Each structure stands twice: as C-alpha cells, then as structure tokens.
C-alpha cells in the first residue's frame, strides 16, 4: 500500500522530481513557485553528490541547466511568467543541442510584471516555441496535485526519450493548493543511459562536441530537420481526459485549473438537464487535435475556457476545422473563472444556437 501524503502543489513537484532521480536544480525565487525552489534546497543539499544552486538570475539558472544536462544529469529549473521569459534564450539552446531537462512554469498574471495570481497567459509561449528559432517544448498541463507528481515524473521520462526540454505548465493556484498525493515506486532503471552522448571523460573515445549552431545554412537545416522529425513522432504521446462525452449537448475544452472548474459545472448541468462534455488536454504539446476533431463531428458547439484572452482556443479551432462553432470565454490578469460564469456562458450559447 503506497502511503498517502497531504502536500502543497509546488512541494509535490519537488518531491516528484527527486523521486524521478533528479539530483540537480538551479533556480531563482519568484512568486508563486518559490516553495518549489525552497523545497529543492531543503532536500538536495542533504543528498550526497546532488546540487542545488540559487542562481544569480533566471538566465544563469537555465544555463546551469544547459551545462548539467550536457553532462548527463537529470536536471530541473522552475519559475513563473517573467522568469520563464528570461530563460527563453537558454531554452532555445537546449532544444537546438537536444538536451533533456524539465522546466516548471507556475503561470501568473501577465504581461509585464503582471500579478502573482493564477493565469494561463503563457500558453503560446510554452507550446509554440517561446524562444527564437524552430523548436517546440514537450508541454504537460496538470490539473491536480497528484498530476503535478505524475506529470513531473513523466516530463523527465519524455525529455530523456526525445532529448528535448519538457515543460510543466501549471498555474499559481495548483502550486499553492494542498491535496493528498501518492508516490508510486520508481524504477531507477527506466532512466536511460546518457553515456553515448553526454560530456565527460573522453578516454577511449573521440572527444564530443555539443554545438548549438552551424554557420552553413545547409548544415543547420539538417540539424533543425532532425529536431523536427522528433515533433512528428510526438503525437503518439498525446494524453487527455474526457468527462461526460457520451452524448453531450455542448463540449467545453479547458486545461489545468479551469478544467477543475468545468467539472463543477458538469454536475450543475446534470441537475438542470444539460449534458456538458469536457475535453481536458493533458499534453498541450503535442496537442490532442484528434479527440477534439472527433467531438466537433458530434456537437454543434464547443466552448473553450481559459484564464487568458484566448490562446488555446486557436488550437481548438484548428482541431475543429470548421465542423463545429468554437466559442471562447476567458478571464485574465490573475482572475480565476468561476463555475457560475461558465454555466452562464454555456446557457447563452445553447439558447442562441
């Protein structure tokens, strides 16, 4: 029987990372994720051979990650909004050099210094690249503290499997809330060996070079195309949750915190005789286009609810491909959408159409 623990979201991520064999963390404090940095300090500074550094900046942190990943370490950094923006150059280098790592973004209100309240305005930045050049992150969007644990572990595995940085895209609310969690046994053997590419001692082999550039356009194109082929493989990793999708009157697409709110609205709908289906993308990149496309064949209306001005809605429209009408409801600036707002929006759409 695996023990159940009551944990705060941010700390659960930290414990999950250590559980998954992460021994290197570099970060800089920023609300609303500082508990994660503090947790990693508390734990890693007591583990022989591990490293925790409160770096001088977010930029330094991501470049320490770049070095640690190049040396073959399971490594993580975390931040929120402005700090993630600062890391983007380094993230682009990691992607080009095909170095695995996990980056946590507990989103807060933006743009600018914004607010420290939960938001989902970094969807574009997370899923469309974020830094310069042709690349994507693997992006996982948890919706509970247990998922923060499970997806953090999964993020390390996917990052290693595809040799690509992976991001946990949570928000301030998930980071701050407490829920019971379980840590299933982790088999260390599943961490792949990096002996065939990581930097180290070149005794008995040719020296290795990790070079995230090439001045010859044809050569750089080869590098980028190789990275691009990984993204073609990624759809097989798509993960989503569907709720009440047997015979829905309307489908709501939402991720993270907002999906939790929608689940409350589904119950309300049942009482009122309206069947509200939910599709909750768990992988934001790769995005679950197929299941949304399938839903678009079955319902006339899809509502996308986000804590932003409307970002994921663009991917939902691509997925629906004109087969159903796609509506959007959003709050931004750090305002969390209430069940009443979504319920009113659902009724409005159903009454008008």
């Amino acid at each position, binding site marked *: 029987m695996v023990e159940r623990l009551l944990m705060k979201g941010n700390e659960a991520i930290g414990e999950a990372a250590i559980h998954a064999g992460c021994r*290197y963390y*570099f970060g800089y404090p920023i609300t609303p994720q500082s508990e994660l940095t503090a947790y990693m300090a508390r734990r890693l500074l007591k583990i022989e051979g591990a*490293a925790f*550094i409160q*770096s*001088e*900046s977010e*930029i*330094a*942190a991501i*470049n*320490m*990650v*770049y*070095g*640690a*990943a*190049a*040396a*073959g*370490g399971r*490594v993580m950094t975390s931040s929120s909004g402005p700090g993630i923006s600062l890391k983007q*150059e*380094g993230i682009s*280098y990691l992607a080009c*050099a095909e170095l695995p790592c996990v980056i946590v973004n507990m989103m807060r209100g933006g743009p600018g210094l914004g607010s420290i309240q939960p938001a989902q305005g970094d969807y574009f930045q997370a899923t469309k690249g974020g830094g310069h050049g042709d690349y994507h992150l693997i992006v996982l969007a948890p919706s509970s503290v247990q998922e923060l644990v499970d997806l953090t572990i999964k993020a390390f595995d996917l990052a290693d499997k595809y040799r690509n940085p992976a991001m946990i895209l949570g928000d301030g609310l998930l980071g701050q809330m407490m829920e019971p969690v379980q840590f299933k046994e982790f088999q260390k053997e599943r961490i792949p060996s990096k002996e065939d590419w990581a*930097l*180290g*001692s*070149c*005794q008995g082999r040719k*020296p*290795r*070079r*990790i*070079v*995230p*550039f090439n001045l010859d356009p044809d050569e750089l194109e080869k590098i980028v195309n190789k990275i691009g082929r990984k993204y073609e493989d990624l759809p097989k990793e798509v993960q989503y949750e569907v709720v009440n999708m047997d015979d829905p009157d309307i489908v709501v697409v939402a991720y993270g915190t907002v999906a939790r709110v929608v689940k409350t609205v589904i119950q309300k709908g049942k009482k009122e005789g309206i069947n509200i289906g939910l599709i909750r993308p768990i992988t934001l990149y790769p995005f679950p286009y197929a299941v949304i496309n399938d839903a678009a064949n079955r319902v006339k209306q899809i509502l996308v609810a986000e804590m932003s001005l409307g970002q994921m809605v663009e991917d939902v429209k691509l997925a629906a491909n004109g087969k159903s009408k796609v509506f959007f409801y959003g709050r931004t600036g750090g305002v969390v959408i209430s069940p009443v707002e979504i319920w009113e929006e659902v009724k409005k759409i159903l009454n008008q159409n």
Partner: protein
Amino acid sequence: MMKKVFARPKSLTEVPFTYCPGCHHGIIHRLIAEVMDELNIAQDTIGIAPVGCSVFAYLFFNCDMIVAAHGRAPAVATGIKRVKPNNIVFTYQGDGDLASIGTAEIVHAANRSEKITVIFVNNAIYGMTGGQMAPTSLEGQVTQTSPYGRDPKTMGMPIRMCELLSTLNSPAYIARVALTKPAYIIRAKKAIKKGFQYQIDGKGFSLIEVLSTCPTNWGLSPKEANEWLEKKMIPYYPLAEFKNVEEVS
C-alpha cells in the same frame, strides 16, 4: 639522428585556426593545450567555447567541448562541474562575453568559487561583430560604436575585471598576463598552469586575463598591434597576480 624539439600539443586537434594574422587567440589556445598536455588532463577536460571569434574553439581542443550562449559560460561550467566534479572544466571568454553581457555570471561563479578555470581574453574590442566598443575599450579608443573615441563621461571607463573580482573573498587565483614578448608568454603559461592546477587541487575558482591583440579591428599591423598593447593597454591593465590563495596567510 634528428631530435624533435617542437611539436603540436596533443591537446590541440589538427584543425587549422580560423584567426586573423597577428591575433593572440592562437597563442592562447596553444598555451592552454600545452598546459593540458603537461598536466595530462585532456582526457578529463570539458571546455566551454564562448560566442565571438573563439566560438570555434570547440573545433581546436582535443577534449569534450560545448558552445555556450553569449556571456553564460560560467553558468554552463557550473552546471557541468556540479554534475561531473571529477572532470576539469574551463571556459574561454572574450571581453564582451565576460565583462559585458556575462558580468553577472562571472561575478557569481567567482563568488561561489566554482572549481573552474576561466581564460579571459581581453582585446579591448568586439572582434567577430566587426569592431564595436568593448567594456574594456580604452578611454578615447575609436571603434564602430565609439566613432569619436570612448568618452568616459557617457560611456564609462574601461572595466578592470581582475581588480573587480579580486574584491571577492572566495576566488583562488586571479591574474593578468600578456603575450607580446617571450618573457610574458612564459609567465602567461605559468599562470594558466597554476589556474588549472588549483582546480585539480580543488582550491576553487581561477581566472587568467590575457591581454590580447585584434590587429584587424584595431586597424594595425600585427607588429603595431603588439606595440599598441604594450604602450596603451598594459599601463591601464597592469600585469600581476591579484589573488593567489597559496599566498594568503
């Protein structure tokens, strides 16, 4: 029977240098490689190439190499060294890289006394981008971006990194050297060797600043460039050991 008295260091690859005639990068590369040979550490060394003319350093050293983002080599080195504490880690950085865009990284890596060796090449100009003002460009120096000469009133005075970093308690070794004559080259090699030896001995952070020429962007011949360095740079950037943990009582 002929005796071989001069050979390419084993720690250099066969790839020909890409540097301009009279540029000191080649000498500095060679000195590092000779030190790696003498200390027999190439097989355990990981080097970090910067952004700038010496980005191609990754091609020249016969050890594992990685290219870092502009200014971030000390952070990258930190990440590598913390994962592989038994490897020897060095960064190779220019003045724009280390003293401008990467000032935070070098100050904090030095302050944490990361067990790395930093080779800081100061040629008082941006080479690869075509001759813009560096944080170390001299007062009155004409560059693309100080076309009327560096005016300290609006552009500040050139930064002396060794002196600045020497105010920190933790670094093990900080020295400035030059290469304009054989005696200087011998001293420079000794300083570089000390830097690596201190890392091997676990003493902490070491930085060797090498005053260097950029004849192309200075608009001088190699010979004139050496003279300019001796006449203009050395008086402002004195050659010295600024910090040596061995000599602290």
